[in-house]
């Protein structure tokens, strides 16, 4: 598992070479375990940052698994700078990553941080919110995001609470104070952002951010590139949302929640869409053939295997989720 995380995209895996795989399985966890011990629970620099379009700065997350020791820095996060205000789009999976992002903002502009936007409810995108609390920004999210973050977060605190400090509690999880029903425009001073809320897709609360002037679209986890998408909301709903997004005109830069920056919207969605359509059609065939979940997870989508990172950690779960959704069609 660990070994796969370190490979680059499109690199074919040794499917039969069990011996080689075992060697990697032996060495890599030791290295990962050791580096984790030395580094402790905090993210450590250097903090990469790219200006992908005028005023749009992206920090690219690492393509490692949730099961890795260091999973606080896996999401693409960043900020947009206007003449009057800065808007943050996702804050990373730990207070440390959030602080590193805040430091990066301060290197580029003294403008106040007016908005912190969270694209959805997964911890790798919002645990860093707490690093911006003292700036007093408006925290903004989908109308369903408060439901997802506002209650008891026992599950995420138990599994990932270490990224919030020594005594993580619900108070460290900051839900939005302002929500988006369908769309919302924000003026940063010479820059207009258009936020769009979607029906259930990757999650129940996906939100995108468009910098209208430069045609830069921040998609959060509506778009995974190279890293295998994870199904949490509805795979059919997600495909519908992709269909809607492909109709957008004037997008010149596409920022996925995970993976490299794209230029053409349709091209950027191509892999994800093909993967999801493949899983949907093959799961439907399994259901029609009377095969149960345990058989479906072993056979569905295998043609996609070499095209994605972190396949072993996520694919079968996706098939299982798609199955339980599609069997009630």
């Amino acid at each position, binding site marked *: 598992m660990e070994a796969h995380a370190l490979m680059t995209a499109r690199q074919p895996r040794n499917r039969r070479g069990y011996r080689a795989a075992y060697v990697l399985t032996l060495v890599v966890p030791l290295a990962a375990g050791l580096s984790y011990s030395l580094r402790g629970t905090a993210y450590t620099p250097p903090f990469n940052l790219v200006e992908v379009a005028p005023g749009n700065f992206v920090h690219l997350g690492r393509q490692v698994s949730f099961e890795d020791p260091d999973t606080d820095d896996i999401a693409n996060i960043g900020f947009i700078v206007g003449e009057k205000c800065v808007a943050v789009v996702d804050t990373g999976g730990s207070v440390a990553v959030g602080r590193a992002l805040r430091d990066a903002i301060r290197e580029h502009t003294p403008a106040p941080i007016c908005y912190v936007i969270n694209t959805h409810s997964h911890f790798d995108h919002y645990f860093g919110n707490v690093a911006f609390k003292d700036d007093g920004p408006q925290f903004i999210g989908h109308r369903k995001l408060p439901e997802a973050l506002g209650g008891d977060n026992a599950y995420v605190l138990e599994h990932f609470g270490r990224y919030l400090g020594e005594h993580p509690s619900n108070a460290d999880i900051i839900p939005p104070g302002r929500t988006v029903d369908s769309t919302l425009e924000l003026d940063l001073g010479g820059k207009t952002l258009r936020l769009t809320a979607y029906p259930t897709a990757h999650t129940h609360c996906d939100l995108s951010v468009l910098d209208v002037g430069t045609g830069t679209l921040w998609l959060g986890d509506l778009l995974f590139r190279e890293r295998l998408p994870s199904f949490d909301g509805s795979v059919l709903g997600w495909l519908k949302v992709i269909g809607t997004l492909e109709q957008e005109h004037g997008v010149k830069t596409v920022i996925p929640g995970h993976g490299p920056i794209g230029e053409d919207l349709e091209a950027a969605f191509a892999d994800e869409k093909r993967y999801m359509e493949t899983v949907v059609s093959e799961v439907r065939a399994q259901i029609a053939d009377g095969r149960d979940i345990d058989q479906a997870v072993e056979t569905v989508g295998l043609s996609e295997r070499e095209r994605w990172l972190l396949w072993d950690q996520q694919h079968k*779960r996706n098939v299982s989720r798609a199955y*339980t959704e599609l069997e*009630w069609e």
Partner: protein
Amino acid sequence: MNMQTFGRGLIAALAFFGALQVGQAAAEEKLEIVRPKDFKSDVDLWATFLRDAYFKDTEIIEDKTVIDMKTPYRAEDAAVTPVSITAQFDQSPDRYIEKLYVIVDNNPQPLVGTFHFTPDTGKADLALRVRIDRYTNIRAVAVLNNGEHHMVTNYVKASGGCSDPFGGDIYEALKSAGKMKFRTVGEILADQTQLGQFSISHPNFTGMSINQRTGNIVPPHFVNRVTLVYNDKVVMKAETGISISQDPSFRFFFKPGSGGTLRADIEDSKGNKWSEAFDVTEAPATAVTADKGT
């Protein structure tokens, strides 16, 4: 560096060694019960508590002469872990399985359910989907008509299946509760045992997840009785609990003969009752094939 972070790193490394050992065993198609190093409890709940609680002094034979069980080594979705139990012989009036217990040792409610069969069942196979809260042993205990208890045990890696945030809209899920589906799998042949799949739409709330809208615990609300009767003969009767996944689904065998009616009676923990009848005809709507057994 403090001891805690060092410990975590060490545990991560050990966990992968554990996975490696079992990976090799699986390659030899052996099921080995391995307790991983990062197991959260030192208590063997089965030995210290459950065995006595469920079976008192009854002798339990651990072998595969009566049933075998298939579970994933690692549950990909802990809230929906497929478990299939296969009987090693057909039901006959002389020798049949009258009851199956399914137990997940480390779940908050270990007994998933009890499932009753008759000689008319054909074959006492059962496939179901369970929640798994943490790394655990899963057990199936078959009780024969002569009173013998035979047990098989598998080890499953998973976590979070019981307290995992409910994956949907609570209010929407309750709206469709009680909707049922039944289908036969494969071609129906007279005088043969036939695989059937029965599913109920029900959120099966565990009582451990949170209503994110109110911040309150969602009270337990689950299917606790399932009775399936085919042409007035009981095919399966089950008492079930919160360890059954959302939208409970069961696969089992029955003898369709030349057709008839399968009646399903469901009851949940709040006293809601639903009934539905399904026609079973000799010629299925579409000719479909299935792999052997469940």
